[in-house]
């Protein structure tokens, strides 16, 4: 009964979305303010309906209602509660429902805060959001209904894929979707603005606000997903250039470009057309990601079902939205006029440089991801475009960008002076050179590229910190005055500083792991030990343990340094009888920001066992940098100009002034 109710609520949400896609639009065109005004409350209502429907599905999972096909396929009565709940989005149908839930959530939030916007513009944004909601709700209801009943009901579920039975599943997909779908507001805003025909600083500010919000979540989602893959898959890597990872990287890079170009639009009224285009492209890449993952054309961990019908439907949705938006752009963009003027060497110029490199990188990642698919469709040859391709194209494109990162914030708007900026960066240049020399010294001149990489990482970090000194005074300023100014620096400034420092930290982590990491595969017996990174790891033996829905072999290790025991770590292989599948639980031993990473093999004889063991120096910096970037995003949101009401009060002031 409950389940039918959920299904019904979803149909109701579809009907209301259809209403919202048509009536306010007609209202805008026929100048009927009453139907335009319905857009905002209806957005809230749609969200409530979808949320209730989602709760019904969660309820079905919690009580293990095996008369629902989706629950039978993806749950098990003995599963822990957390995995029962996160299992809701661990499959195709549920994850699409989550996608729509987040879409309607953002529409509702936007509707709630859009009181200050011109009414038509706000309504048009919501209309565009509803078009997307209609497409995806119809997709769920007609091709992948999560509420489908099973007759007769199953006795026991088939269990969630063991690899997904992890805390990572509870956090990674919702975060990632918040990021992906958040860009839909930027997209709808761009479409509404093109229809409305007025691109101003207000557009820049709001697009930037939403781009930053989505970007924070997307960064979090990618960071968590990367760490999850690192410890769950047992391959010791943090990024595999898997098509699904690329699908999340592309909107991320494009989002970075968008939130930079929106600054120019907001502050200087330049790059209007480009920002509108970027807003469209970013969400298009999110949709492309959804298509790649959900259509089943990729074989990967993230792929839940192969159904060509679904693929074709998503492809049609994709073509409709991307094609429609670009067509609208082609017709309306010539009407937009840029007003800001600037010299190529200026902050605008630096941001254009950033945008050009980021978008070229997006293009290469796109080629690397789609080329094998297209080749297979057109000629039937199967090829794999792997890490070498991406390393060869991604790194050369990132290099100039990273070199220029510290310059950006130091250049002035309109016309900058590269000599002044360079003079201010002398200190960071010196630090970078010192680091380079130090690394060359300790590796005895062997690792020139790695040394340059470390130098680059410090160049970015120190370069971002330099700005704090410059903003608080000139070299002679007394420290109390500096402290006072330091505390008054705006949120936007801290946003830049944190995000850029985070970039440097991530880079540092990546290079440290590749350069100084150690890796061994050995056959180890109880009592044996292995020397790694100047320490010893002893194998203490193994035991058998029975978990709630699995059995596991646990291996115990201790880390010792000169006969002092420093740490203890357990690693295991789990066998899931319900699916006759085994997974690896890696043993992670933390040492500051570094880790020992132990993976057991599947073969045991005479108490001996093959293990794979890594020393990962400073590996946690990779994800720490991600959190720094997120913090940067949060700081830039706290900037005064984003506070609710500031816009309105400012408008009121301008209005009053014009009356005088």
């Amino acid at each position: 009964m409950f389940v039918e109710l959920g299904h019904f609520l979803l149909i109701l949400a579809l009907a209301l979305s259809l209403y919202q896609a048509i009536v306010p639009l007609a209202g805008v065109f026929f100048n009927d303010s009453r139907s335009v005004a319905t857009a905002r409350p209806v957005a809230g209502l749609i969200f409530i309906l979808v949320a209730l429907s989602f709760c019904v599905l969660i309820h079905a999972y919690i009580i293990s209602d095996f008369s629902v096909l989706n629950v039978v396929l993806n749950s098990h009565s003995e599963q822990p509660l957390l995995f029962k709940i996160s299992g809701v989005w661990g499959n195709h149908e549920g994850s699409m429902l989550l996608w729509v839930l987040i879409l309607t959530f953002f529409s509702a939030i936007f509707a709630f805060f859009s009181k200050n916007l011109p009414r038509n513009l706000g309504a048009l944004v919501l209309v565009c959001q509803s078009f997307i909601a209609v497409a995806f709700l119809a997709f769920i209801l007609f091709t992948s209904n999560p509420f489908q009943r099973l007759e007769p009901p199953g006795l026991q579920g088939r269990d969630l894929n063991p690899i997904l039975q992890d805390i990572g599943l509870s956090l990674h997909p919702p975060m990632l979707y918040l990021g992906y779908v958040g860009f839909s507001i930027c997209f709808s805003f761009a479409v509404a603005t093109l229809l409305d025909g007025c691109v101003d600083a207000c557009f820049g500010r709001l697009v930037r606000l939403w781009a930053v919000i989505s970007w924070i979540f997307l960064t979090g989602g990618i960071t968590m997903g990367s760490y999850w893959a690192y410890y769950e898959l047992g391959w010791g890597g943090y990024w595999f250039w898997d098509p699904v990872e690329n699908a999340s990287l592309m909107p991320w890079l494009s989002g970075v470009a968008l939130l930079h170009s929106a600054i120019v639009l907001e502050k200087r009224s330049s790059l209007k057309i480009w920002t509108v285009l970027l807003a469209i492209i970013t969400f298009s890449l999110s949709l492309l990601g959804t298509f790649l993952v959900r259509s089943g054309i990729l074989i990967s961990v993230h792929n839940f079902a192969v159904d060509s019908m679904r693929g074709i439907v998503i492809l049609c949705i994709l073509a409709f939205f991307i094609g429609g938006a670009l067509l609208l752009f082609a017709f309306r963009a010539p009407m937009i006029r840029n007003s800001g003027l600037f010299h190529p060497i200026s902050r605008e110029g630096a941001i254009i440089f950033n945008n050009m490199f980021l978008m070229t990188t997006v293009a290469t990642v796109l080629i690397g991801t789609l080329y094998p698919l297209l080749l297979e469709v057109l000629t039937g040859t199967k090829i794999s475009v792997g890490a070498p391709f991406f390393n060869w194209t991604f790194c050369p494109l990132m290099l100039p960008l990273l070199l220029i990162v510290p310059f950006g914030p130091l250049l002035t708007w309109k016309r900058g002076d590269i000599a002044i900026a360079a003079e201010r960066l002398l200190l960071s240049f010196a630090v970078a050179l010192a680091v380079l020399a130090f690394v060359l010294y300790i590796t005895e001149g062997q690792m020139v590229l790695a040394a340059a990489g470390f130098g680059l990482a410090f160049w970015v970090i120190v370069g971002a910190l330099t700005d704090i000194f410059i903003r608080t005074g000139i070299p002679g300023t007394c420290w109390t005055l500096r402290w006072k100014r330091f505390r008054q620096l705006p949120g936007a400034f801290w946003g830049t500083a944190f995000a850029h420092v985070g970039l440097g930290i991530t880079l540092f982590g990546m290079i440290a792991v590749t350069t100084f990491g150690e890796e061994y595969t050995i056959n180890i017996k109880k009592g044996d030990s292995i020397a790694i990174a100047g320490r010893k790891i002893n194998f203490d033996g193994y035991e058998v343990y029975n978990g709630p829905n699995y059995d596991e072999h646990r291996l115990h290790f201790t880390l010792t340094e000169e006969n002092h025991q420093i740490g203890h770590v357990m690693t295991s292989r789990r066998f899931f009888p319900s699916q006759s599948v085994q997974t690896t639980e890696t043993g992670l031993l933390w040492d500051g920001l570094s880790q020992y990473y132990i993976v057991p093999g599947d073969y045991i004889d005479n108490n001996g066992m093959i293990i794979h063991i890594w020393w990962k120096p400073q590996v946690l910096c990779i994800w720490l940098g991600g959190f720094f970037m997120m913090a940067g995003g949060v700081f830039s949101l706290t900037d005064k100009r984003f506070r609710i009401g500031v816009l309105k009060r400012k408008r009121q002031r301008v209005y009053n002034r014009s009356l005088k």
Partner: protein
Amino acid sequence: MCIISSLSANCRRNHKWKRHLSGIEHHKAVNLYHIQQQKTRFWIIISGILLLLSTAGLVIFSLRGTMDFFRTPSEITEDDMRWKTRIRLGGYVKEGMIKRAGTGVRFHIADLQNCIEVYFNGVLPDLFREGQGVIAEGFFDENGVFMAVRVLAKHDEKYAPKVFQ
């Protein structure tokens, strides 16, 4: 000192722009505006084209290094064995032929006609077992044994055991 002097130069420049403009001067300023705009646009377009061209070169260069997705034992030629090129070998793990010694493991990858001996030193993936479809990445040594550097177990998308399908 240098910083301060150039800062004041900047101020002077700004000051010049801001002063009141008469009609003819205004006309000149609009002209200047367009010239500056065109100059900036020119530099952006030129650098954009250069960037795209060099990236295109980079992409084409890098795509040459891509590998076939995988080849089955029947598709392996004498040349593959002779020139130690890095290839991917795909097939299923032949039953009853897995031998372990130390950390290494020897097994046979087979398709319907042929079968090739593979040596791998390391930890096999979770899904590796007899009869399972696998892809081994590596090269042939002098004796025609395939030295795998990486072994991937293919899995179907649902990770479900065969019983349910």
